[in-house]
């Protein structure tokens, strides 16, 4: 089973859209790797620097509600993937973005508002890191000398896509 998680990147806002994750002008790229430098380039958020090492060193994104709204562009999950981010933790997702994540074998995990608040309690810790066990439905966040664990649910289909490594091989073998 693929390892999910890593250093946390906190994006404290709802409705972060796909244009903010990867602007449309980069949709002319035809390989995923070419997207790499443009991660979250147009996201304006107090205290957030799209060019910082922290952004590019992250392994997991923690954010609020309706993450990934807007365009169907799978470039949004891809720009995370090529930067080593394979899981997004949010209170809710836009449908297409959520499905794109699982279709790529990554994880878009919905947590309660209260759970998200608890995760944001670690936002001040420079060393905040999350480990996610998709199979067991558990995650642990560590940082600033503290540690907390919580449970989550993803649908059996989404879990199967993660295990299969994505939707293309799953579908081609089955249908």
């Amino acid at each position, binding site marked *: 089973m693929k390892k999910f998680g890593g250093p946390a990147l906190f994006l404290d806002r709802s409705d972060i859209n796909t244009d903010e994750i990867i602007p449309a002008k980069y949709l002319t790229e035809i390989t995923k790797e070419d997207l790499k430098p443009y991660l979250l380039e147009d996201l304006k958020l107090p205290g957030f620097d799209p060019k910082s090492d922290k952004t590019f060193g992250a392994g997991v994104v923690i954010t609020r509600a309706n993450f990934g709204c807007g365009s169907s562009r799978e470039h949004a999950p891809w720009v995370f993937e090529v930067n080593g981010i394979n899981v997004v933790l949010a209170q809710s997702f836009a*449908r297409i973005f959520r499905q794109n994540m699982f279709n790529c074998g990554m994880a878009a995990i919905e947590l309660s508002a209260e759970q998200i608040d608890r995760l944001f309690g670690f936002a001040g810790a420079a060393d905040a890191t999350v480990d996610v066990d998709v199979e067991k439905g558990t995650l642990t966040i560590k940082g600033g000398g503290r540690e907390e664990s919580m449970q989550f649910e993803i649908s059996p289909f989404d879990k199967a896509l993660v295990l299969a490594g994505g939707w293309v091989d799953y579908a081609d073998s089955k249908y």
Partner: protein
Amino acid sequence: MGMTTAQKIFAAHLVDEPFAGTKVLSIDVVMCHEITTPIAIADLMSRGKDRVFDPSKIKAVIDHVTPSKDSKTATQAKMLRDWARRHDIKDFFDIGANGVCHALFPEKGFIRPGNTVIMGDSHTCTHGAFGAFAAGVGTTDLEVGILKGVCAFREPKTIRVNLNGTLPKGVFAKDAILRVIGHLGVNGATDRVIEFGGPIVAQMSMESRMTLCNMAIEAGGTSGICMPDQVTVDYLWPFISGSFASKEEALAAYSVWCSDADAEYEQVIDLDLSDLAPLCTFGYKPDQVKSVAEMAGTQVDQVYLGSCTNGRLEDLRIAAQILKGKKIASNVRAILSPATPQIYKDAVAEGLIQIFMDAGFCVTNPTCGACLGMSNGVLAEGEVCASTTNRNFMGRMGKGGMVHLLSPATAAASAIEGMIADPRKYL
């Protein structure tokens, strides 16, 4: 208990239910454009799966950046073009015949009530205007659609939105959908189908219904849907007259896709629009909606009339009616992009293009262009656009630009005054 249109379409297209709550559906129409499809083609080739499940069910168009603006977009266009030729995809639309996908494909008669439709474009929900289940998907779902003709969905719940009363003069489908999105919020319909009904929808043209359904995604909706009726049959008649003995027969056949009277909805929203005023967005989210009266006087640098939301002939007629004999203000530039070559030709024949050009509009070829800041009318830092498009995200039409979404009538009035203006005084 009766069923909704979406439930009926799901039941009729069910291929597999690998897990409770996940429905794998057969897809009737897989649509492709040159931005999200080439990377799917490249991936299929790298996997040794360069196949298509049924070339007659695949429709493809180069529309987002056309004519190509640089070597990268030329490569994307070439990849789609070569792929369409390689797989004998006959419904492929290239320069000279290409238009904005969600305007072009309905115009070609590709969508039928009861169809399942996917495309790697979030505004695919537009096609729900025909009583179809039409959903935007990412490239991987598109890839599987191309390869196997299937797509997986959670069965969506349905929100019924009744548009009651009659639309006042100067108020159009665009104002109605902005009202609905303002009511639902940007994620109020996530994993839901928005089913539009009521007296106002019953009287709407197919063009107006497409404008409604086009923006279902702006409330998070999987699809928008209107019930197939006589208006649907009349629109489709040139394409289906060989299949049915009469329009009555076609109507009877398509009516099976209407929601049952006792269908169960998650939520029913009744909106009386008899007193609705022209609306406009004010922020960076499509649910940030105010009346045009409240926004009047907001200076604009550019007016954009076009896109899959409002680039249809009906839209051009409304705007031209306001612009006839007038000039755009000196502080503003105005761009018209008719959504398809047919619309362009019809607009020329009706004298509409003359009106736009006399008023001072720049008329471009059909393209998605400025709507998503890819070509033909991108804004500079700090510029403001009054736009008939569907999305007002920060920087959408160019980094640092501001977009106000509004109707073609309001766009025309705003062009004349050089600031956001109420169209009713010109009608």
